[in-house]
């Protein structure tokens, strides 16, 4: 049994009296497509924020590749190899599509700021390299034609794909996608499903995703954990989740 790439061990966070994530425990193996679902306010995005260092857990541990990452600041978490997208799109709106992805690759840059201020050949080459890498990622995400446009001017579905391209530019091992299919039409979400599969199959990324679109999750994810009120209520393969009484209760309420 290989070591899991990410494991949450009794991860807990409390905001005052509210326990947003309560003793959540799960392991994700390298190369898995893992789903995290649950009704609104279940604590899914808070889980992402715990993993990426936005919040520090008040209890439990988070291990990435066997290393404890509780409370490590976000930019260091990104460097370790975890990248994320945001539920409410957070692109660098005024910058070009290409520049957004270049910034994603910036954390692997190998020059210092003085070389950039003096515009030394090393800094120019490094910027060129990041630009080429960004362009290649835009090809993968089918955004190459938009490279020079402003990120904020892209249609919604393309903005979501750009977020994934930007996250991919950090060269992560683990990709966290927060509602990647939100606001997409059936065709777009179908295409996205294939793209996410491609990220795993061709690029070897492990994917943890939050999604409300059940068709999307059930078709894509291999394993799923369901949260409600910060607690895990079910886990298993899609077929098990679909018929799980607790899950049905959480989403639809109880029969009167």
């Amino acid at each position, binding site marked *: 049994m290989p070591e899991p790439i990410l494991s949450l061990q009794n991860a807990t966070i409390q905001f005052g009296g509210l326990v947003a994530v309560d003793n959540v425990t799960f392991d994700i193996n390298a190369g898995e497509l893992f789903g995290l679902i649950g009704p609104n306010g279940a604590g899914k995005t808070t889980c992402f924020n715990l993993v*990426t260092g*936005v919040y520090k857990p008040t209890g439990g541990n988070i291990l990435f590749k066997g290393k404890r990452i509780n409370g490590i*600041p*976000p*930019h260091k978490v*990104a*460097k370790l190899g975890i*990248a*994320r997208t*945001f539920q409410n799109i*957070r*692109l*660098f*709106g*005024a*910058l070009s599509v290409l*520049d957004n992805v*270049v*910034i*994603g*690759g*910036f*954390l692997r*840059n190998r*020059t210092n*700021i003085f070389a*950039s*201020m*003096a*515009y030394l*050949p090393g*800094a*120019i080459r*490094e*910027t060129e390299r*990041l630009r080429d890498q960004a362009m290649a990622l835009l090809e993968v995400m089918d955004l190459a034609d938009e490279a020079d446009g402003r990120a904020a001017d892209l249609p919604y579905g393309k903005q979501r794909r750009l977020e994934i391209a*930007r*996250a991919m*530019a*950090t060269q992560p091992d683990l990709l966290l996608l927060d509602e990647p299919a939100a606001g997409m039409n059936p065709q777009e979400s179908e295409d996205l499903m294939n793209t996410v599969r491609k990220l795993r199959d061709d690029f070897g990324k492990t994917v943890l995703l939050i999604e409300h679109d059940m068709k999307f999750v059930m078709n894509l994810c291999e394993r799923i954990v369901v949260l409600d009120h910060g607690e895990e209520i079910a886990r298993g393969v899609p077929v098990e989740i679909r018929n799980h009484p607790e899950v049905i209760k959480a989403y639809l309420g109880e029969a009167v």
Partner: protein
Amino acid sequence: MKFWAVRLGSIGLAVLVSFGIGMIAQGSSGTVSRLIALAGLYVTLAVSLNLINGITGQFSIGHAAFYQVGSYTAAFLASILLSRGVISNLGTPIPWVLVAVATSLVTAGIAGLFIGLPSLRLRGDYLAIVTLGFGEILRIIIQNTPQLGGSYGINSPKAFVVPYVWMLTFLCVGVCRNLLQTAHGLSFLSVREDEVASSAMGVNVTRVKVAAFVIGSAFAGAAGALLTFNEGFINVNSFTMDVSFIILTMVVLGGTGSVTGSIVAALTLFILPEVLRDAPAMPLNAVLGTLAGIALLVGTIRLAMDHKGLGRSIWMPKTYMGIGIAVAGGVVVSVLANYLPALTNRTIPSAELRMVIFSAVLVIMMLLRPQGIFGVRELGLKSFFRRANA
């Protein structure tokens, strides 16, 4: 090989142009020479504040404080050198000027570090208050420190620094332009756009903010040192809040984030009040009438621009009619003002009139082009070529 040829060529050209400007300054009267130096200093100040405000998005309104740190560092150094007899009252030799500039660069950079550190936790208006407060505290401390001249000020031996002022300007512009051409500059911009997203992408937001403050204030400090030797005398009144606000206005007017915008706006805002010194005194009613006419005209154009947002051209018959009505309205107001006895006998002296015009230009500018002269764009050879190809 070609790279270094271009690089050395452009540095050589900048030095040559600086000395050219120096020669022009030497050939002209003392007042004009002083203005040429101050124009360069203001460009440096605006471009360096643009790095903090426009590019990194940290709203700092105390830039004069760093200018002051640099200026007083140089003056203090000069006073030590004077007391040791290293330099005489006749003038500061250029090598010592350069030493003072380097020292001021460092001290102002350190001051920037200390202001940059609280900025990690503060955003927007809160940061603005801290930077404003820092400037005022510093000014008042210096005013009450006899060793630094107190409220009287310090004399320093003068030096002819115009070429070095412009070299600093070219250096500051060059550094900002270089940053923006590389991935490092993009990380600065990303902090302005969205801090949460940029830290999630691995950008060390803390380091970027501090770097912006240190680089921006260091340039302001170097400018301050050159001011000391250009003026030969400095006191705290050269570094009041007004100065900070003028620099900030230059950045906003030029288009937040645009380096070329800052340059053009700095030159315009610096030269405009100087040119207007020769404006004749005007009767109050004429001034009021003109202002009213302009207000109507600008209001009309602004309305037309809002309609343009609905997908129409602004040059429709209605616009022409509106402009006509605005001009007529201005004349009517002016004539009416003529008959108001309280107004007819007053004239506005030119010294005050120029400030009226200056403010009116700012208001008109912000109404008609709120994104600044250049918006976020840069003006350069490349943009000319792009237009030619399009």
